[in-house]
């Protein structure tokens, strides 16, 4: 197995993902640098969310490892793994807010557990995180009382609760109207610039991929491995891989420049 890149925030080496004997993806190798906005893209059902779950330790790789800053995360366990996990923020596809708690409580619970802040400070912070995603005033609502899009945004607020170094977002834009989706992109860019966070985002929304990503991996269902990695804007111009180009061109075989003529 190749050695991980010591300078990279996240390195994945020789990762094989499988459900029992069914192999989803083979031999994935890529690096996410600090302050990257890294997009995991690919057709539906190709294992994008599964890759994300491998990167945050919810699923164990069949082979290979995930490294954080050169340290092996896959073989770490117990307290050591918790140390990494505390530096993550994760937003799940459905929001996954704890349904028995209000939006504010969803955000304060991790803070109560992992910080020494006073209750009043925690309350202010929760208000602030909700305001960041445009949900001020909804502190005391339960997840079931607000819309799906709001659940999603509250999920992002919760992911931000502990000011994580790495934020994992699973399809943040899906199911949002174009305007909210655009606002979300802006939010991600702002957060990256002001907090210096690294983002790993699962998405297949082209507009948002080109707007925010500076690095990416394309999972190819046909070959069961990565089709390409790199900046999606460059991939569009340069990639040799036909599937990747088709994906980034919405299935148009011609390049976009010639397309306009």
């Amino acid at each position, binding site marked *: 197995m190749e050695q991980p890149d010591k300078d990279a925030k996240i390195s994945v080496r020789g990762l094989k993902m499988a459900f029992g004997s*069914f192999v989803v993806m083979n031999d994935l190798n890529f690096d996410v640098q600090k302050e990257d906005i890294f997009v995991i893209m690919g057709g539906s059902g190709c294992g994008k969310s599964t890759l994300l779950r491998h990167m945050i*330790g919810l699923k164990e790789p069949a082979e290979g490892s995930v490294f954080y800053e050169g340290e092996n995360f896959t073989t770490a366990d117990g307290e050591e793994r918790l140390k990494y996990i505390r530096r*993550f923020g994760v937003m799940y596809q*459905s929001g996954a807010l*704890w*349904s028995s708690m209000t939006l504010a409580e969803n955000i304060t*619970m991790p803070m109560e557990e992992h910080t020494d802040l006073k209750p009043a400070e925690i309350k202010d912070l929760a208000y602030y995180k909700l305001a960041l995603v445009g949900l001020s005033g909804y502190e005391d609502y339960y997840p079931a009382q607000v819309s799906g899009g709001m659940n999603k945004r509250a999920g992002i607020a919760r992911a931000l609760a502990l000011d994580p170094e790495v934020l994992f977002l699973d399809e943040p834009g899906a199911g949002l109207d174009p305007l909210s989706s655009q606002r979300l992109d802006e939010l991600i860019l702002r957060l990256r610039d002001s907090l210096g966070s690294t983002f790993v985002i699962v998405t297949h929304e082209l507009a948002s991929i080109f707007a925010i990503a500076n690095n990416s991996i394309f999972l190819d269902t046909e070959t069961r491995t990565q089709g390409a990695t790199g900046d999606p804007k460059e991939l569009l111009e340069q990639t040799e891989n036909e599937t990747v180009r088709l994906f980034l061109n919405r299935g148009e075989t011609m390049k976009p420049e010639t397309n306009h003529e």
Partner: protein
Amino acid sequence: MEKKRDSSPDNPKAVWKDDGGRVVLFLSGDWVRGSEAAVEGVSERKWPDAFNAENLGDFDSILPAFLLRNLREADIKEPGLEGLPDNLRGLMELALRVPERSEAKQRDDEARGLRSLGLVSISVSQAVLSVLEFTGDTVRSTLRFFTGRAKFRSQDFWEVIQDCGASALPIVSLISFLIGMILAFVGNVQLASFGASLYVADLVGLAMVREMGVMMTAIIMSGRTGAAFAAHIGSMNANEEIDALKTFGFNPFDYLVLPRVFALVLMMPLLTVYANMIGILGGMMVGAMVGIPPALFWAEMLTVVDLTQASLGVFKSVFFGVAIAISGCLQGMKSGGSSAAVGRATTRAVVASITAIIILDSVFAIIFTILDI
């Protein structure tokens, strides 16, 4: 595609013909829903070299489905669609654009004879193992709690206490009262024929405190609380809420299972004592109807029901509480990610906890007999 027709549709027909070395499939008639397609001259090859659709009338989804079925049996990579009308060809091309991922298709496991026996044995042993593992995890988690290394939200705990304590009182009252009455009635039928009606008090008292009180409470709690645990935790699982707990560094076991186990272990004995009292009250009422004054009933009952007897049921209730909580939480945690899976988890939780209660009760019956209590 619907055309006005004067007559009823022609019967659809597919005829295989060998046309100078080429296999041609002649399609004719109206391939519409409700018609029975006649296939003639079945070919060894499932897919023709060309089609002839000159006499093809109307068609709906029946025809592409028929072709697709043949194609799957033929197992050809790039089938020729020559001779098909344009619209049908378009539909076929659409259906064939993304090749089938054969390995993604679920193989239906043929479960027959010895194989099915083997599968059942494996699943049973896995189920037993998972119960043992879960019980072990519960013990470890409890130890962590008492050494201050595990915690849960106290609010969750109080909510469960409320739900499996006070909120369960009405149904427990009703059932135990009726059980007490039934015991008294049934007992009286036999005892009255010996002129020994008074002993109804002994019967009701002893049966309630040793068996019926705790048993009925446990069964009510399985259906009520055990099922609720499974459904709640199961839907949290389906909604990725448990994953969210994990990635925030919370141990889902400590957070979800522990408060529920503790709450039931605390509430079951209290509910059992309450059920015993209500049951005896029911018996007493029937006693009054058949001529045993309540004071006499009470005094007679106390001759057999002493503290030892009364504590047996309460003792058992603690174990039943653990069994109910563990079955409910285990099924919830194991539940899959869909609403149907949550339903199945709930069913399994109730069945498992009632089975566990009955088995535990038999074990206790044997132990108490040996100990001669």
